[in-house]
C-alpha cells in the first residue's frame, strides 16, 4: 500500500479527503505511483504530467521523506519508506502568488 497526499485542488477534483491509498502492482516508482493514481482517479489525468509527453507539469512537485524527488527519473525506485507505506508520496502545487 502506497500513501499519496494530493494538493487541495486535486483532492477537490478527485473528491477525496485526506490521503489516497494505492495498490501499486509493479515496483514503487514515480511512474507506477502516478499510473495507479490516474487509474483510480481518471479526472487527475493531465493535471500532474502532460498527457502526451508524460513530463511533470512545471509547477507540480513530488516530495517524500523530506526529499524533493521532482527531478528524479520516473522509473527510479522511490524511498523504501514510501514503498512500505511508512511515509507518503506528496504531490505539491509549487508555491506561487497570484
Amino acid at each position, binding site marked *: 500500500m502506497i500513501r499519496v497526499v494530493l494538493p487541495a*485542488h486535486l483532492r477537490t477534483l478527485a473528491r477525496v479527503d485526506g490521503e489516497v491509498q494505492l495498490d501499486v502492482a509493479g515496483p514503487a516508482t514515480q511512474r507506477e505511483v502516478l499510473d495507479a493514481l490516474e487509474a483510480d482517479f481518471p479526472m487527475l489525468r493531465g493535471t500532474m504530467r502532460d*498527457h502526451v509527453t508524460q513530463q511533470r*507539469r512545471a*509547477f507540480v512537485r513530488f516530495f517524500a521523506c523530506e526529499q524533493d524527488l521532482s527531478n528524479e527519473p520516473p522509473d527510479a525506485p522511490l524511498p523504501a519508506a514510501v514503498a512500505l507505506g511508512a511515509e507518503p508520496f506528496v504531490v505539491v502545487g509549487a508555491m506561487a502568488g*497570484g
Partner: protein
Amino acid sequence: MSGVRVLVGTRKGAFVLTADGTRADWDVSGPHFAGWEIYHVKGSPADPARLFASQSSSWFGQLIQRSDDGGATWQPVGNEFRYDGVPGTHQWYDGTPHPWEFARVWHLEPSLTDPDTVYAGVEDAGLFRSVDGGQQWQELSGLRRHDSGSAWQPGAGGMCLHTILQDPSRPERMFVAISAAGAFRTDDAGTTWRPVNRGLQSNGIPDADAEVGHCVHRIAMHPARPDVLFMQKHWDVLRSDDAGESWHEVSGNLPTDFGFPIDVHAHEPDTVYVVPIKSDSEHYPPDGRLRVYRSRTGGDEWEALTTGLPQRNCYVNVLRDAMAVDSLDSCGVYFGTTGGQVYASANAGDSWAPIVRDLPPVLSVEVQTLP
C-alpha cells in the same frame, strides 16, 4: 415564467447568476471551481441544462467540466487536446519557428443542434470538436494546416482561437477568429478553411492588408442574417455583408475604435454593441468613463450608453468573451469587467445596473434565455 441564466467565467472561479424575466432580482451561485481560471462557460442551445466550462490553472493544466443540470452539479470530462499528427511550428514573437504547444481552452461553442457536440478553441491556435459530450476531443486540423499556419504569430495574450460562429442556415459553414492570424471560414464542416480578411487594415503588421496576421478580437453574427458579420479588431470596427468575403470599416463616430467584445441585439440585426477602450496598452475606458456604444444602423453611427455605468474614475477593461445578449423582449445586454462587475441592461442598453460588483476579474459572460 421565462428567465435568464448568466454564466460568468473569472480568474478565480465560475459564477451562475439567475433571474426571472423581469431581470430585477438575481441569485448568485458560486464560486464553482474556486481558485481556477475559468476562461469560458457556455450552455448548449439544444439542451439548456447542459453546460460546458473551461477550467485551467498554471499548476494543474486544463480541465473541461460539464453540467447536465444547469450548473447545479458538474463532472470533469475529457481534457486531452492532442494536435493531429506532428504539429509543426508557427512563428514566435521574434519571428523564429516555435512548436505548436497546447496551453488552454479559450472558448467552448456547443453545437446549435446536438447537445453532445461541442467545439473548443484553444491556444496555441487550433479547433477541436467533441461528439460525445466532451469526453474525447479531435482536432479539426485543416485549419492549423492551412498554408498560412506556419506564419501565424501570437498576440500579446497568446496565439488563441477565441471566436467560433456557426451559421444556423448552413450547417457546414463556420467562422473562427485567431489572435493574431485573423478570421477563417469553412464551408465543409471544418475539413478545409480559408482566410476571410479582405478589407482589414492593420498598421501593426508589415503588410497592412495581408491575407493573414490581423489581430481580430471578436466577431458577432445575428442568427437570422448569418452573412452579415461584425468585427471588433485590435483597431477598427468592421462589417461584412458577404460572409467574410470582404469587410469595410464602420467605426464611424466611436471615441476610439479599439476594444474587445462586440455583439448584436437579439431581435434587431442592425443593432450592434461595442465597448470602446483606450489603447495602446492602457486598456481602460477613455476618460475613465465606462460607456457601451450602440449602433442602430449596422455601424458608422454610434450612441453612448451611460445610464447606470460609472462615468468617473473607472479604469476597468471588458474582455472579448465578456459580453452577451439574451433573447427576451426587450433584449437584455450583459457584460463583465476586469474589476469584477457584471452589468446588465434589461432594455437593450438604455440603462444599466450591476448584478454583482466584486467578483474576481471577469473573463467571460454568456447568457441563456430559459423558457
